[in-house]
């Protein structure tokens, strides 16, 4: 079992493999911490605003400062945070967008680079919340990092120029360190694609009478294998006249498409190994063919192992087949718009500008790092109060827009070009933050 041993030393197994329960628990913890921090940050913003302008009109909190002290006033109630499930939906949407972004380059980025970027995003959001760092500001950097780690290197200038809209190089690179730290400095992602290619090559060899017998069934001849392959039942929903080569090509293609979509957008990588993932996808593409392939590997004396493996593969297949792309499903898009609208009100104002945080760890920031941000703060006397007032302005803006206009904003965000929207959205917050 030497290959299994090697896989167990990989960072994908050591750090990024979970049971369903442990995955759920981790996401819940991340969500709890982020929610508390959002509430605290918004409370700080509100308090700052009150002390700066006690008679501010139009903010409901101004009249209820008494009940607010215990943190349960009406002001508090309107900060409704995202649930872990909502966070996951949102991240999934940006994973789909990552595929699109990779497509815009000429030539389009390789599948593997995009897949790595998606897994970076998914890993990032296991310990970070979209309420803290909006996926739209993390996504491009995750893709750029993937070009570096997957040997598809292009310069930052070239990369930024390829993004629709006016995203700057600084916008792209700002969260790089944050992402690397969240990835716990593990960059290797083990994908199921290579295993698929190998399996298809083996099946092609078998079909040509060049198959290698399994070490467990040495009595098999290449001719036995070839005969076995040509006598498997036809694939469901395929014409009976289909040649074996066509069938292999078709199964190959279908499997690959599943690996490019469902395998990326679900928790498959967190819950299953690369070979389990491609075999599960292969089962979905052409079950009789997949069963034959499995038999060449662990038929005969290993039938109990086969049963065990089939259970795992079935679970993984179910996960994969349950995936529906968001952008083509009006029902899911509706939910997503609601989540985006909700996020608009519970985005942590202190983390809105990642570029401003660059090289300032959070610990230093909490002790008045407004000065460290380096840029003069609009309207501020001292750095501290200036930044506070900026935050206050932001929070106020949110509240004022709470009624209707933010709805359009949220709609905007999911129509048209994503990154242009990103800049629009970031516009008001692109000042050094405090805190």
């Amino acid at each position, binding site marked *: 079992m*030497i290959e299994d*041993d*090697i896989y*167990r*030393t*990989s*960072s994908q*197994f*050591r*750090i*990024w*493999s*979970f*049971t369903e329960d*442990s*995955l759920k*628990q*981790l996401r819940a*913890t*991340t969500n709890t*911490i*982020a929610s*508390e*921090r959002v509430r*605290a940050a918004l409370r700080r913003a509100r308090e700052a605003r009150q002390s700066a302008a006690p008679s501010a009109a139009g903010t409901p909190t101004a009249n209820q400062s008494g009940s607010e002290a215990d943190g349960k006033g009406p002001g508090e109630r309107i900060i409704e945070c995202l649930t872990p499930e909502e966070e996951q939906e949102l991240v999934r949407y940006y994973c789909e967008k990552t595929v699109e972004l990779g497509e815009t380059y000429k030539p389009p980025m390789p599948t593997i680079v995009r897949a790595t970027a998606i897994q970076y995003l998914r890993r990032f959001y*296991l*310990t*970070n919340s979209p309420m*803290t760092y909006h996926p739209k500001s993390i996504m491009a950097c995750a893709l*750029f*990092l993937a070009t*570096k*780690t997957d*040997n598809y*290197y292009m*310069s*930052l200038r070239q990369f930024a120029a390829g993004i629709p809209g006016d995203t700057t*190089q600084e916008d792209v*690179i700002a969260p*790089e*360190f944050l992402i*690397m*730290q*969240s990835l*716990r*400095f*593990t*960059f*290797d992602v083990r994908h199921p694609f*290579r295993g698929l*290619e190998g399996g298809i090559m083996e099946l092609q060899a078998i079909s040509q009478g060049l198959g290698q017998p399994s070490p467990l069934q040495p009595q098999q001849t290449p001719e036995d294998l070839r005969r076995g392959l040509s006598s498997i039942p036809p694939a469901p929903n395929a014409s009976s006249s289909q040649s074996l080569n066509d069938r292999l090509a078709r199964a190959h293609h279908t499997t690959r498409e599943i690996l490019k979509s469902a395998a990326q957008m679900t928790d498959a990588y967190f819950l299953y190994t690369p070979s389990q993932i491609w075999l599960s996808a292969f089962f979905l593409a052409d079950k009789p063919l997949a069963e034959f392939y499995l038999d060449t590997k662990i038929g005969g004396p290993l039938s109990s192992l086969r049963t065990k493996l089939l259970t795992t593969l079935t679970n993984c297949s179910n996960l994969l087949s349950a995936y529906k792309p968001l952008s083509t499903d009006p029902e899911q898009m509706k939910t997503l718009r609601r989540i985006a609208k909700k996020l608009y009100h519970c985005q942590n104002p202190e983390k809105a500008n990642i570029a401003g945080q*660059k*090289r300032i*760890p*959070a*610990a*230093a920031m*909490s002790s008045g790092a407004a000065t460290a941000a380096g840029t003069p703060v609009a309207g501020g006397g001292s750095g501290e109060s200036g930044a506070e007032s900026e935050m206050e302005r932001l929070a106020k803006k949110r509240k004022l827009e709470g009624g209707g206009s933010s709805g359009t904003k949220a709609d905007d965000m999911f129509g048209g070009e994503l990154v242009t929207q990103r800049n629009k959205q970031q516009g008001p917050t692109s000042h050094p933050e405090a805190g």
Partner: protein
Amino acid sequence: MAVSPLVSHSPSAASSSPAKLRAANVRSSATKPENASSHQPSQNTDRELTEQLNDEVRQKYVKDKRLGEGTYAVVFLGRLRTDPSSFVAIKKIKVNAEYKDGLSMDAIREVKYLQELSHPNIIALHDVFSSKDQNLNLVLEYLPLGDLEMLIKDGNVHYGAADVKAWMGMLARGVWFCHENFILHRDIKPNNLLIASDGEVKLADFGLARSFADPYLNMTHQVITRWYRPPELLYGARQYSGVVDVWSMGMVFAELLLRVPFVAGNTDLDQISKICEAFGTPTEENWPGVSKLPNYIAPDRNHLVPTQGRDFFLRQFPNAGPVGADLLMSMCTLDPRKRKTACEVLQHIWWTSEPRPTDKHDLPRKSGGTRKMGDDLTRRGGEIDENAFKNAARKLDFSAM
């Protein structure tokens, strides 16, 4: 941990270094959730989960004195906070103000591959953490006995065939493990082969490493230090395999035997002609397809050197013995398709024929004797030790290649 096919005795698995044992626990692969979910984050919600995890790692180590500095990194001696007698090397990557594209490729490659490779003959990366100002710190295995280059060059160090066999065995197992994990090292040479306090050789410097490309995809040929670069790369091949590293291993083997670099060209062109002189001129006959390589230079028909046979290797490397000469020849076969793979190298009968490889604890070492690592540090700079430290630090500096 996976075991090489030909580890006759495996003392390497049980290290005498306490730091390593502890690291083995840290990187334990037996239990599934080493991951974040097993952490119970404190109720201090002022720090994000990621930051809390990073703090935990950082606080495991105490930085001690500086061991060396290059343009790319500074290397410090470090200790485990809980056990100050366990040493590590902490390599702090300098943030390059000139480089605007984020973390450099060297650093990314090194971190990426060392995170995946856990083997007695590959330098261990115990941890990575960020310190203030977003500096990247790699916590590496502490290797205080310098490198193979030091030993080769020092005329006062005497060694024989059994010692060469021990060193080559450790190198071959390290390279085999890289390839087994689909990773090409692409810079094997004596000064990237560091030596642990127990004599174990460790493959270091993964700044040029990469995973195998998928079939038909190109890779760069501008890799591997010239004297150790195989002919296919000198001819500009963009698609190549693990046997590029095997050629380098062959060159290290030859250098260990001769105590000078075997084919040391001044330029890439000179390197090609020296290889031709030494091993024979590559032609379509001995290497089908060679003339199609982008930088292939048609040989002068009047100066064709025939491919060298066993006799040549025996003559050139008498101290290798006939079996050793045969192994060396199979590692420096011109045609990469005919060259042995790392796995085949390990299956060669040389390893099991006489003399048996020296036990790693008894291998010649430059600082002499079996001093404790702690002594090296408390003593005030003995000259040899000072060099050893400088050397170790320099080797960890990837810009110096």
